[in-house]
């Protein structure tokens, strides 16, 4: 079984807080893997470390067999590893469509010289990107919102927009930070079906999630973190009956 992401003894300290401590696990290519743990367990920090927004103090991160722990965030993104943010960071003053059109790499129109040359090439490029963006928006169910300012979307729709922005880049691995937090139950059903569709199209998903129903239904494998370390890993059923996990969630009170 091929591992798309391997995290080997990664540590990161912030001042006096050891946020991530020799964390070690891997994610199988083509899987949906859940990452759970109590608040402050270091899950979001781990995402930042993997995606290059924060440098690890020590340890290795391999994506598709290549070391990425020393690359910067934009380089990692270009390799096909994309992340969403826990609190959606939509570009409020832009339309939903513009939020997606930002994404495609190596746009000719993104260079200064394109401005001085005849517009044909840029228009052609925009037409292709526009088609793709429309397709992605249809897929996540935001097709009708294309021309809306992103600021006017609901909380759940903003989560979908974050997803759509990642999909624009044809990622290999998506890190989703609490995709259903603050989303109403109806939209959660919709979000889950979108995630299944994304997975079916060949994208590996690593999901931080507190909603256990989502984890149970979606994930084939769950990794549990506490105090910066992996304390358990297994199928959802195994995790549910794991005593250490229960202790971690209940604040370490021993029975």
């Amino acid at each position, binding site marked *: 079984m091929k591992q798309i992401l391997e995290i080997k003894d990664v540590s990161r300290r912030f001042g006096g807080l050891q946020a991530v401590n020799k964390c070690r696990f891997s994610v199988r290519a083509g899987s949906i893997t859940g990452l759970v743990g109590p608040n402050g367990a270091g899950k979001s920090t781990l995402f930042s470390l993997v995606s290059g927004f924060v440098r690890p103090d020590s340890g290795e991160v391999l994506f598709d067999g290549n070391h990425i722990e020393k690359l910067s965030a934009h380089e990692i993104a270009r390799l096909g590893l994309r*992340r969403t943010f826990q609190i959606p960071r939509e570009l409020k003053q832009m339309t939903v469509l513009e939020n997606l059109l930002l994404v495609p790499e190596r746009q000719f129109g993104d260079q200064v010289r394109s401005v001085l040359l005849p*517009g044909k090439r840029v228009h052609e490029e*925009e037409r292709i990107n526009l088609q793709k963006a429309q397709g992605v928006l249809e897929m996540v169910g935001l097709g009708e919102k294309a021309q809306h300012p992103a600021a006017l979307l609901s909380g759940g729709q903003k989560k979908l927009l974050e997803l759509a922005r990642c999909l624009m880049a044809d990622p290999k691995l998506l890190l989703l930070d609490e995709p259903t937090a603050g989303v109403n139950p109806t939209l959660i059903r919709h979000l889950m079906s979108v995630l299944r569709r994304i997975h079916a199209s060949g994208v590996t998903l690593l999901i931080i999630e507190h909603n256990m129903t989502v984890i149970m239904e979606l994930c084939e494998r769950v990794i549990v973190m506490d105090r910066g370390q992996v304390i358990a890993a297994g199928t959802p059923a195994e995790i549910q009956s794991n005593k250490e996990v229960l202790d971690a969630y209940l604040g370490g009170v021993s029975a």
Partner: protein
Amino acid sequence: MIDYLIAILIFAGIYGFVALGLNIQWGLTGLINLGQVAFFAVGAYTFALLSKAGVPFLLAVAVATTLSGVFGAAVAMFTPRLREDYLAIVTLGFSEFVRLVLLNEKWLAGGPDGVAGVPRPASFPGLGSETSFLIVTALALAFAFWFTRRIERYPIGRTLKAIREDEGVVTSVGKVALAYKTKAFLLGAALAGLGGAFFASYLSYISPDMFGPNVSIYVLAAVLIGAQGSSVATLLSTALVAALLEGTRLLKDYITFVDGVELAALRLMVLGLALIAIVMVRYRPGRP
């Protein structure tokens, strides 16, 4: 009277370049620059020295524009992670630094005496020097306007706006935010330098005291009135500011109860008050 009108239009055009430049940096990309006059000065001096050395008009303008752009890129590259407030201090400080260098280095640019006898481009046949200069300025400004308008509407403008809103998002989609910020600063500074070249050519004499902070404030006010973002609004508001301030410059022929220094001081007080008023309207409580 028509001469006054032409003069006001030319000044409006010159400041138009500088304001369009600031609009790319601040309006579009969200990078505050309180020292736009530094690049204006680099352009003016480069043009003045080159064209006095016999370099043809267009070539001297091109070199002046490019060199200012290089200075802009350098400032952006040295300040990659500066917060808004620090960038404000550094850019304002940089502009005063440039002025001090011009003031002190006699060998370079004549020190406090400045540079005199800067030539204008040849006049069109049958037209006066002033009218010809207005036409040349208008043509160059039309080009600058076309350029900035395209920047706004092209994918590159979208990326710059995205940086203004949230730099982290731009990084997360795999783009190098610093590269775009540098480009924005380069382009904005280059446009200021272009304005500087026309300024030197029009006045035929430049000295360091013309490059004080009031020029930066001038264009800050114009870009603010234009609500930071649109080239059209920026140009219109620059024309408005120029009409008010350059227009009052001409009052000295009619007003006899204040002398030249007092009138100049009054005009700059009006500029300061105008900036205060604009900021208070633009950022009044309850406005998003």
